[in-house]
């Protein structure tokens, strides 16, 4: 694509001045492709940018390379079979997706999970949130040349993913929640292990903070770059850290507390400028707040069952399946026909790592969902990418793209 934009300006140049003539050399716009397989494109997204020199004149993102048909597949699975698909939406914080989906289904069923399950969901969800933010910041550092930040971030994330795998049996494909509770209780000594590893995670976060937040090079590359105001961010559908970086106080955990977030003491960090640096800074602060929630949640973790006793919705315990006819029947119905979720529709929303994670579930009373629609937080944020990068230099594209933390799995379903 070549567009000439020289002729109109040439007449204004003083033809006697050779330097002025040189500054007005004829030039044309150049279109280049970033991605789909570009190391800084997090997953696969193609960005066609039209450059005027080194300035981005126009950008068109093209998505869908990772489209797996999540919603269509969900309609042909039982309610519980959808759960593994939700892991793959945001594969960095899968438990938040598990919890978000199951809470939407529970809203439709009108059941509530027992207190121990609620606390464990909060604790594991906050661990996942820290993992997500650490991944974002680690990749952010890496792509700006700060390899140490990447190593620190990944070390902390590995510590947490070890805890997740002790809890659920898998690092990222957790599928840990069930309607009315959880698949498994925390193993003995798990809370102590989490408490042991959290100081190291916070220490590494402090190191990253010290390396980046007041680093001259980092500030020069992020401060004042990709600025978006609060009202405009809302208009574009921003939620989560990207919205809060613009100064809008909207966190689902505070605005509409679910599970036991109303019993937790934590703050919602807000940015002031809405630039790339604020989006990074809000994530660093949220890691610390999440650590507070984990500490409080583990201290208050009540004893008791992790799944309800109502076998219409919840899976019967294995002991009952093997020793009683009612247990066998309930188990059989769950796995052969699926849970009979009452007819109706509900929108369940939770605070995912990147913003409001909503699941719109519709049931016609059968064992399979009639419709599952995911409101992926990254989808509207990515749609604003051209707005954020246009007018900036090519080199600014990478920090801006890192700071919105686009996750291919959820954006492209």
């Amino acid at each position, binding site marked *: 694509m070549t567009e000439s934009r020289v002729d109109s300006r040439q007449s204004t140049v003083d033809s006697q001045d050779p330097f002025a003539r040189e500054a007005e050399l004829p030039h044309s716009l150049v279109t280049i492709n970033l991605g789909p397989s570009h190391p800084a494109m997090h997953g696969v997204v193609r960005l066609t940018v039209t450059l005027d020199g080194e300035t981005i004149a126009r950008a068109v993102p093209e998505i869908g390379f990772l489209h797996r048909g999540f919603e269509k597949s969900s309609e042909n699975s039982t309610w519980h079979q959808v759960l593994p698909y939700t892991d793959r939406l945001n594969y960095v914080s899968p438990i938040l997706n598990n919890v978000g989906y199951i809470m939407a289904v529970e809203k439709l069923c009108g059941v509530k999970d027992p207190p121990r399950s609620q606390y464990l969901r909060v604790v594991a969800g906050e661990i996942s949130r820290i993992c997500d933010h650490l991944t974002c910041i680690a990749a952010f550092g890496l792509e700006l040349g700060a390899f140490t930040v990447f190593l620190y971030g990944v070390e902390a994330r590995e510590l947490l993913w070890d805890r997740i795998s002790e809890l659920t049996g898998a690092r990222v494909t957790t599928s840990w929640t069930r309607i009315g509770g959880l698949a498994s209780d925390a193993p003995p000594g798990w809370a102590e292990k989490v408490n042991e590893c959290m100081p190291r995670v916070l220490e590494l976060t402090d190191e990253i903070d010290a390396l980046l937040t007041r680093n001259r090079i980092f500030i020069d590359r992020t401060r004042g770059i990709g600025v978006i105001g609060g009202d405009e961010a809302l208009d574009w559908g921003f939620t989560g850290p990207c919205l809060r970086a613009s100064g809008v106080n909207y966190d689902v955990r505070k605005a509409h507390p679910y599970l036991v977030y109303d019993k937790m003491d934590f703050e919602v960090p807000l940015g002031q400028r809405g630039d790339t640096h604020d989006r990074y800074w809000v994530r660093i602060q949220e890691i610390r707040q999440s650590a507070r929630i984990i500490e409080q949640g583990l201290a208050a973790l009540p004893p008791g069952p992790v799944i309800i006793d109502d076998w219409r919705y919840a899976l019967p315990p294995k002991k009952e399946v093997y020793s009683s006819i009612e247990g066998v029947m309930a188990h059989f119905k769950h796995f052969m026909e699926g849970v009979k979720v009452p007819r109706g529709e509900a929108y369940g929303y939770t605070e995912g790592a990147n913003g409001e994670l909503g699941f719109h579930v519709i049931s016609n009373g059968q064992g*399979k969902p009639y*419709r599952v629609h995911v409101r992926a937080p990254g989808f509207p944020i990515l749609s*604003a990418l051209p707005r954020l990068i246009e007018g900036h230099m090519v080199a600014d594209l990478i920090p801006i793209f890192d700071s919105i933390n686009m996750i291919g799995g959820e954006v492209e379903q």
Partner: protein
Amino acid sequence: MAQALIDLVRGKFPDAVLSSASEKGDESIAVRREALVDVCRFLKDEAEMKLMSDLCPVDMLTFGQEMTGGGSLASQEATPYALERKPQVEPRYRLLYNLYSVTKKQRLRLVIELRSDDAKVPSVTSVWRTADWWERYAYDLMGIEFTGHPDLRRILLYPEFVGHPLRKDYPVQKRQPLVPEHDFPDLIRGPGPGPGGAGLPMSQTHVGRQNVDPTTYD
């Protein structure tokens, strides 16, 4: 809480609101299609519904079927016989606009019902910028047409895709036709009308300069 909001909309647009409902804590109002943009603008400006959270298109084709599961008509077990005798449900499509007010902490679902022979709805991109991609998503996967949308094309699927997969009569295991190879006229600068003109198909060329007329390459 949200009842006051529904009354407000009813008072302002007495003819446009068809019905309102409250289900499991979610408030919803169904509005007439013609009034959609006006109602949306009113909700954004007067009721501070600054965030259009999402847009969920639903196909109601098999909703009433018993003992079938949600997607049975489109599932792999569906026989051609069942597909031929597909039920007619009107209005077939529902569009659910999920609106949220950060200041008032209110959520409202706006429902538009569409008949299958006239699946068109005015675009609300002039009200919320974020509607742009959500409407492209609904167009791509459900085949709803948004009149007045600035750039209505597929977003997740590729342009040659046939059909709209979230419709209930789209079989899950349907195969798509193979897409013929595109010509890449300018391999150095990527796809698009480049200076090289129409070149050879990619399989017949080396990726390199020889594909481009050197005189036009600056």
